[in-house]
């Protein structure tokens, strides 16, 4: 998998994306908010995922992006209590594989690659597992730290809906490459990675962004 990740990075980097005419290129910074976390919060109020992003177009159609945020889970039910708080960042390049037309020169189709790191602290002060034969089982998990590293690759769109204002989505596949050795239990959500249900994950992000031209 690592081999393919780097191979894709190199292929994307070397793609002749546009006819070479950089005289009109103006570098820019785009700041954004991932609203998919807010949408999820409406459906699962116990989970709060806040994420900001910034990317800089340092060379025509070549972007360096940083995404960072906070994730908290706070569950208080009759049969269980669980809390986790964590932060994360993802860093990597984006490559625009869409040639820029005259009418919408800032619309983008992006091939993205990221390294991700997430850290969290979790605890479950009350766990009740009902068992009709053996009787209810009570347990608790002391506060513990957890961290994870992953790689991701994905595809996304960014469309300029108003001047300098963008909406867009990104579909990301993730591969967990390292994590804390297990102590108590795997976290419900790894900050920045998503639900922990194995070493791979697929997530859809939805962004609102504002572009600031640098000259």
């Amino acid at each position: 998998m690592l081999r393919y990740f780097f191979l894709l990075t190199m292929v994307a980097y070397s793609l002749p994306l546009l006819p070479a005419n950089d005289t009109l290129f103006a570098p820019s910074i785009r700041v954004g908010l991932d609203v998919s976390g807010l949408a999820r919060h409406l459906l699962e109020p116990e989970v709060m995922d806040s994420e900001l992003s910034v990317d800089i177009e340092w060379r025509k159609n070549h972007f360096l992006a940083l995404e960072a945020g906070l994730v908290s889970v706070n569950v208080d039910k009759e049969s269980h209590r669980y809390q986790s708080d964590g932060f994360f960042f993802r860093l990597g390049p984006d490559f625009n594989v869409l040639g820029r037309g005259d009418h919408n020169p800032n619309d983008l189709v992006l091939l993205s690659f990221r390294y991700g790191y997430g850290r969290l602290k979790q605890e479950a002060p009350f766990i009740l597992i009902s068992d009709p034969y053996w009787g209810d089982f009570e347990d608790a998990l002391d506060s513990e730290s957890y961290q994870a590293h992953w790689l991701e690759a994905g595809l996304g769109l960014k469309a300029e809906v108003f001047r300098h204002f963008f909406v867009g989505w990104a579909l990301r596949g993730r591969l967990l490459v390292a994590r804390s050795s297990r102590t108590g239990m795997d976290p419900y959500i790894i900050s920045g990675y998503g639900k922990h249900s194995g070493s791979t994950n697929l997530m859809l992000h939805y962004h609102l962004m504002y572009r600031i031209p640098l000259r």
Partner: protein
Amino acid sequence: MKRSQAAGWLFTFRAMLPLAACMLFLHACQDDELCEDVRANSLRIGFYQAGDDTGQWALVDSMRVFTLTYPQVPVYDMLQNVSVLELPLNPHSGGCAFILDFFHHRDTLWLQYLRETHFMSVECGFTLFFDIEELTHTSWHIQSATVVNKHVSNTLDEHVKVFLPADNGGL
């Protein structure tokens, strides 16, 4: 409307479309979540005929199942035409024993395991998964028993194969 303008709107539409898809998907996931299925963590035993390499389940006419801990409370009081058994592992302890009563013979299965706490979801809460470390048994009726999958979770995997003799009244 110019063609390039139309293409621009189409691109914007495509950019916005996944939000609706995402909302629908998340909503669907919530609705389909059945906690009982997610929390299920029984040990699954399949009965086989000793010497039969076809991998076909054998059928046990009738049997009962008890535990050594609560022998007066049957796990299953009367089972008929059984080829697969689901047994609840004891969450309070790292081991438990089941008495398989084939009526003409009784055998005991002892299991030692590690317990792992898993947070399934906000709604469903926690469950335990198990990793079987050791399986031993008496051999009044059971010819042999093997652990084929150590990890007991909420999947439908078979964990233990129990081989029974072909020439007996129970099969």
